[in-house]
């Protein structure tokens, strides 16, 4: 059993799962905004990075790690709300190209501001738990207490969000407002408030993902921290189906595991190649994504 847990494939699976839940979380945040406002938020990763910087910059003032995480998430929530009210609201009802151009511009702007304020070099983010992999009867298992905490945190946040959307009255209002705003207004749903709330929630989820990425992967917190995870998450969301939160989560985890196996058995250069190949195949066979149900319409 110990040898099995320490085997190459199980190690790849655990490392992939670790990365995959974070990808799933970013994909979920993307899907939430798409469902609420039908806008592809290309600045989602940059907004999350910015929120993480706001929280983690408090480390310089000897504020504890957990307080920094709380501030980062609050900054993420607030950032989402302000962005929707100030920037995105002007894009509703405009040609489809307008939100794409504006959100790509917003991404560049946020990364430029982060570079100017906090610099391009990475900012070390402390780990709340040990990063040393567990040992079991002398065998190393490819997961640490810190890794386990991050997997659990990401899954809890993701499941909370999905449950909120699927099983609560608030989620019902969010879904109704996204699907048919005019009908929702007739029923007393405050559509404008729901759209803002959708952005607030998704931006908060993105901030959690950025904090996890910053404290675990690569050189710590950098202005381009979320570029690679966002790219994979975007592909995962499209494969899973932009209308399906569960699809985004599952596809995100699958892509994370696939990435680790590709890195281990082939080469990291093949990761995007395979991911894009999967995207093209899925779009050809099932354009709405693997997990989105097609809705029949009476004619």
């Amino acid at each position, binding site marked *: 059993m110990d040898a099995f847990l320490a085997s190459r494939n199980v190690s790849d699976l655990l490392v992939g799962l670790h990365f995959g839940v974070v990808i799933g979380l970013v994909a979920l945040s993307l899907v939430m905004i798409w469902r609420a406002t039908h806008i592809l938020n290309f600045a989602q990763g940059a907004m999350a990075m910015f929120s993480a910087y706001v929280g983690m910059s408090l480390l310089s003032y000897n504020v504890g790690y957990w307080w920094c995480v709380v501030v980062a998430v609050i900054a993420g929530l607030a950032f989402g709300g302000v962005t929707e009210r100030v920037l995105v609201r002007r894009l509703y009802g405009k040609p489809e190209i307008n939100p794409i151009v504006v959100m790509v511009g917003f991404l560049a702007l946020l990364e430029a501001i982060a570079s100017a304020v906090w610099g391009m070099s990475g900012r070390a983010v402390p780990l709340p738990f040990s990063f040393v992999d567990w040992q079991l009867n002398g065998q190393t298992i490819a997961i640490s207490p810190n890794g386990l905490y991050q997997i659990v945190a990401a899954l809890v946040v993701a499941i909370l969000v999905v449950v909120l959307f699927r099983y609560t*009255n608030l989620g019902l209002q969010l*879904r109704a407002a996204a699907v048919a705003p005019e009908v929702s207004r*007739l029923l007393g*749903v405050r559509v404008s408030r729901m759209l803002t709330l959708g952005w607030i929630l998704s931006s908060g989820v993105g901030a959690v993902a950025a904090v996890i990425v910053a404290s675990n992967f690569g050189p710590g917190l950098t202005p381009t921290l979320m570029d690679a995870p966002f790219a994979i998450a975007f592909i995962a969301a499209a494969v899973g189906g932009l209308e399906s939160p569960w699809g985004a989560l599952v596809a995100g985890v699958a892509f994370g595991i696939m990435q680790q196996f590709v890195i281990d058995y082939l080469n990291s250069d093949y990761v995007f190649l395979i991911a894009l190949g999967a995207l093209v195949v899925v779009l050809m066979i099932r354009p709405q994504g693997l997990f989105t149900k097609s809705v029949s*319409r009476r004619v």
Partner: protein
Amino acid sequence: MATEGAPTASSDPAASSPQAVVEHASAAAASLVLERVSVQFGGLHALSDVSFQVNSGEIVGLIGPNGAGKTTVFNVICGFVKPTAGHVQFPMAKSWKKETLAIRIVLWLPRAIGRRSSLARRLGHRFTQAGRAIATFVRRVLRIVRVRVPEKNRHLRPSQLARAGVSRTLQGVGLFPHLTVLENVMAGGQTRPHGGFFTSLFALPQGVRADRVLRDEALSQLDRLGVASFAPRMPGEIPYGVAKKVAVARALMCRPSLLLLDEPASGLDESELEEFAAHIVELRSDMAVLLVEHNMGFVMPLVDRLVVLDFGEVIATGRPSDVQQDPAVIEAYLGVQQ
């Protein structure tokens, strides 16, 4: 304007004058009053001086040839279209005042200070009175400088209307395609007090309880209309007649005092029509019903009163039997002078 006491047909413009409408509104329990409503789209007069009212417990039919302006009237009532002139009032609706946050603070602050300051405790209620007086003064000044302080229950937005107890079904069905039948009906209950954001997010008991009450009531509305067995199905999977009933069940979830039905009979067969008419008659004990309908066989025995529109003007109002004999109505429908 026909009144409840004397429901005679009339195409006389004087009979539907605004003054007559207002007088009647005060005399009877009016749920909806339209006063000289006009709507202009560019150079096109969609509605001209339309005045009528619907009283509590009454079923009123709004009829007219295609393009007469029936849907525009509904859109004006629901706040989707703003009238270029005239007023829409909901005298029986729950009180609703909408002010901007800044105005609300300006009006609230003097009263709050009056209630809570230690000076107020010593001086009794005089401070509170002074606060009220200041708030009234501010309100008047705001009107003089043309800051919009909407009057009670006039020109409400669609979401405010639902909260004021006005509910509407749409032409066709208008159900949310991605929500189940039960969720569609639950979506109609958003004007109720329910769990807030944090109670929903963290599944606190208060939120869970509110959600359960909403779910139970949605099921009972479906049951009342005899379609509870379709609750878990998606709208695309149910027959058209059932979907129509689901739309009505959703509209009833906000416990309206005024129900607007937009072509409720379209697409229903004879047996469904009879059943549907019986359900609408049942509703009159709780609310007023205004319906737009082309199917005269369905409308005539169902309604208490008819309002007939042609080219955006009210050409007749009154009992169905009287309206049927009205020369202006016959000309509008048949295109010949009898």
